[in-house]
């Protein structure tokens, strides 16, 4: 794993092949405006090509609504959850834009949530068994209630001819100083 001397703010951060999937970093620059962050496109412009592998993880036919599946990505040790939410979601793919995937180790203090933590009624993952944080799977894994200082790392998906591919990761896995790329 390489160790660059520049900081993440200088653009070493990643990347998706699909710029439209990528969303904000700077949030609301002007306090008090009600408009949502308009920075997503500006952020996307800073992105470079992914250094993550492409991996076929499932087909559309494998998925039933609200039934999570697990898969490993970007290597064989990192477990993630793939789920069809039944409602459109940030980064969602498929005909309903509702298929998303997330790493489920809590980015607060590393509690394992896993597929059993999926709450189908709300499309929320959690609560984390350690400190009860919950995450909104329709909004890029954002904290609903709790303590994690980042969203759940989201696995970037693509769909081609009925197959679902993992192509990247948005966010740093708990316990890592840099995500594994293979």
């Amino acid at each position, binding site marked *: 794993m390489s160790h660059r001397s520049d900081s993440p703010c200088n653009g070493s951060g990643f990347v998706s092949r699909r710029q439209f999937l990528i969303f904000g970093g700077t*949030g609301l620059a002007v306090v008090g405006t009600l408009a949502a962050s308009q920075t997503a496109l500006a952020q996307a412009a800073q992105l470079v090509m992914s250094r993550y592998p492409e991996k076929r993880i499932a087909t559309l036919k494998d998925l039933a609504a609200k039934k999570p599946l697990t898969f490993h990505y970007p290597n064989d040790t990192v477990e993630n959850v793939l789920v069809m939410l039944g409602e459109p979601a940030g980064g969602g793919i498929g005909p309903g834009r509702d298929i998303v995937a997330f790493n489920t180790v809590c980015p607060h203090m590393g509690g394992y949530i896993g597929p059993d933590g999926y709450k189908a009624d709300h499309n929320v993952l959690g609560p984390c068994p350690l400190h009860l944080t919950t995450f909104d799977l329709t909004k890029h894994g954002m904290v609903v209630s709790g303590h994690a200082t980042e969203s759940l790392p989201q696995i970037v998906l693509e769909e081609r001819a009925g197959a679902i591919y993992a192509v990247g990761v948005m966010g740093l896995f708990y316990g890592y100083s840099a995500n594994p790329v293979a």
Partner: protein
Amino acid sequence: MNSLSIDRVPLPPKDAEVLTTACAYCTVACGYKVYRWPVGREGGPAADQNVFGVDFPTGAPLTAWVSPSQHNIAQHQGRPHHVVIVPDFATEVVNKGGAHSIRGGTLAQKVYNPNTPTRDRLLYPMIRVAGQLQAVSWDLALDVMAAVSKHVLAKHGEHAWGMKTYSYEFFENTYAISKLVNLSIGTPVYAPHDKPQNAEDAAGLDDAGVNSFAACYEDWGMCDVAFLSGVDPYETKTVLFTEWMMRGDNPNKAMIFVTPHKTMGVAYGEKNGGLWLPIIPGTDTVLHLALARIIVENGWQDQEFIDKWVANQWEIEAGYGRGTRNTRWQWRTTWGTFQSDWKDFQKFIMKEEVAQLDNAARITGLDPELIKRAAEMIAKPRADGSRPKTSFMLEKGNYWSNNYMNTASLASLGLICGAGNRPGRVISRGGGHQRGGASAAGGKGWLSPEKYPGRRKKALNVDRWVMDGNVRFMWTVGLTWYPAMLASQELASRVGELTRSNPHQPRNLNRDHLIETLINRVESGGMVLVNSDIYPVDPLNTQHADIVLPAAGWGEDDFTRCNSERRLRLYAKIADAPGQAKPDWWAIAEFGKRMGFDGYDWKDSNQVFEEASRFQRGGVLSYHALTTKAKKDGKRAHEALRAYGTEGIQTPIRVVDGQLVGTKRLHDPTNDWGEVEDVTVNQKWLHAFDTHSGKALLLKTPWSFVGWIDFYEAIKPRSEKGEIWVTNGRVNETWQSGFDDLRKPYLAKRWPWPAIVIHPDDAKPQGIESGDLVQIHNDEVFVQTGEPIGVLEKDLTFSELRKNGHIKVTQGQFVAVAIVSDEIRPGVAQAGFNFPQSMGNSVCHAVVDPVSGNYRYKLGRGVLTKIGESPYKTDFTAMSLKPRPII
């Protein structure tokens, strides 16, 4: 930086500098470590390559880890440095093992970096010319302030010169403020950030003889039952809940939550053997009375404790209860409505009609079975005769609704259950802000024109005094003012009239012109407003203030303060303050010198800390023993405290065998230290209750009390108008007004705008869905005017004030984003709190509790109307609209 797409973070190298601090936000004050090293290199993932000595990936939970939000680039001594700010993973106090909240966990994002949203920090002093703020020098700003102040004091007196400031933002700053207000200016026109007047928060607790911060975190860990009134510590004191209440010595404790809003902590408590009592706002006193009655009827009281620790009539009257000087209204504890003892209390509780279960259930809106179950849990002895260890916590939902009676009745309930001074059996506030108030001298409250019925002076209501046009020079420091106070829109409008709408507005920056124009303002009946802050605060300093001073805050100077278990730590300077920003103690000192006052020659914050020490020595937050020992050892007091790191030491600090020893719990008889050593001050409240007899006082709180019931009847939601209760409170992910959070990229996405939580039964008829924009409007907001003198008992009650022309009727509204969820009781909506652009307090009434002088902050009402859809209804990138208690 800090994009969610970040997938790596720099690790501190082995030789990174290590500093210690504590969190800037909630009352718990978790310990944090700061790693700082020059830009250009970083540590590696192998244990011998990073300062943690840990291999990355760590491969396990609860390890050292740096999230991307915990890194930033800061200027240190004029050069760019990496800073990593993480909880102290090794600490054994407060946030054991590195626990942290989302607020503290993102402290690094608070550090000034012009490449982040912190770029709008106030960088230089400014004076408003022709409506626009213009950059000026500190000299010019301070000269103008001093010249106008001298004029105001000479011509209009100290009653026309006022300040309103934070009460908590470090001992060094609050001491300087207190010295200026109380000694040098000598004005009664002062109030802390959260109140209109300078008086106690939870007066009923004080009157019982219980210090609001008597407990330590161990107590919340070891109790068997926690009765939590008007609070979910998960939302507002995160780590106290996650480390001590969910865990602690007794992780199987049962929690009883009394709050109309089921948040995550409530859901956890309910799932783990506890109860949720979704009470109608303002009716807690009735619940406490009903619980006390069930206990008395069944003989479940802790008789042994009562016999030993509750004062009887003779003990009360011989010592005037809590003392006449401390109990303003009617000498509250000695006669009249509230005084009682165990014998009398039993009679009262059996006669009080609202304490009868069916009546109580009707008034509180609670299932009588829930009330009975709660009484059993807190008081019923077990089969073997042993008693549950029950502790009682209260916070704003309790004491900011029916201030005096809720606190007094909770204290009485706790006392008959045997709580108040023993491990795991405490009565205590949970805490809001940290405790950083230091006083230079007694206040000038005796100059207040207000008076309680009876003999005591009443602290001046500064908001009202301003609105009535009596203040000519006002200096506000580190607060939002309007959204934090009630009838917020009325207050903001009035301050705007006195400042911006006054015809006397400077047209250039010539010193003489500025002074002349602002003195003309003063003479025309207007007000000159100065504001010190770290950020623009709308509209206080963006639209109203004439002079704006840039402050240096947390991490930009060495500061000190305590948390809610009185734990004192040094908060180290981490980075250079931006631009010309200066700590508030420095601005006060420079102003004091220009006023010709003595004693403002401090060279650094340590000198202020050392000077303040002597004045706090008899108090709960006394660190005088530390300062004295440091002096003997030839050290600076700040350096002596720095050596205590994140663990700090609990005040009051005493000397035992020449060593400094902290104090875990107040009122605890095991604190009887015998012969006292050195500068230790041995106060009675250390090992007994804070009354003349050292025994606690039981207080009666009749629901029909004239100071309460007519107000409550007048402010209830009017069903004919379609109103519901509109209360307000914090959410875990936002600290206070969001001043930092809205500049932290991740938190700004989570809560870009405050929500209002509405039950489906209330939302559906209005066609309101989650994500809709809702106006909340109250067309009858009561605002007290004038400073009536109390002579007879009823004089300051709502009906009398109204009859005598002291109640003005105004209106108020705000806009919030709807979250429709059954987590809230029907008929009650929960709004955000203290957000400058969505002032939930606009629909609450600026009429104080006549017994204590505090507002009833949580008792708003309004009609909810959909006005459109917010962008968050369809935007995937911001503001989750999911319910909070998903478990």
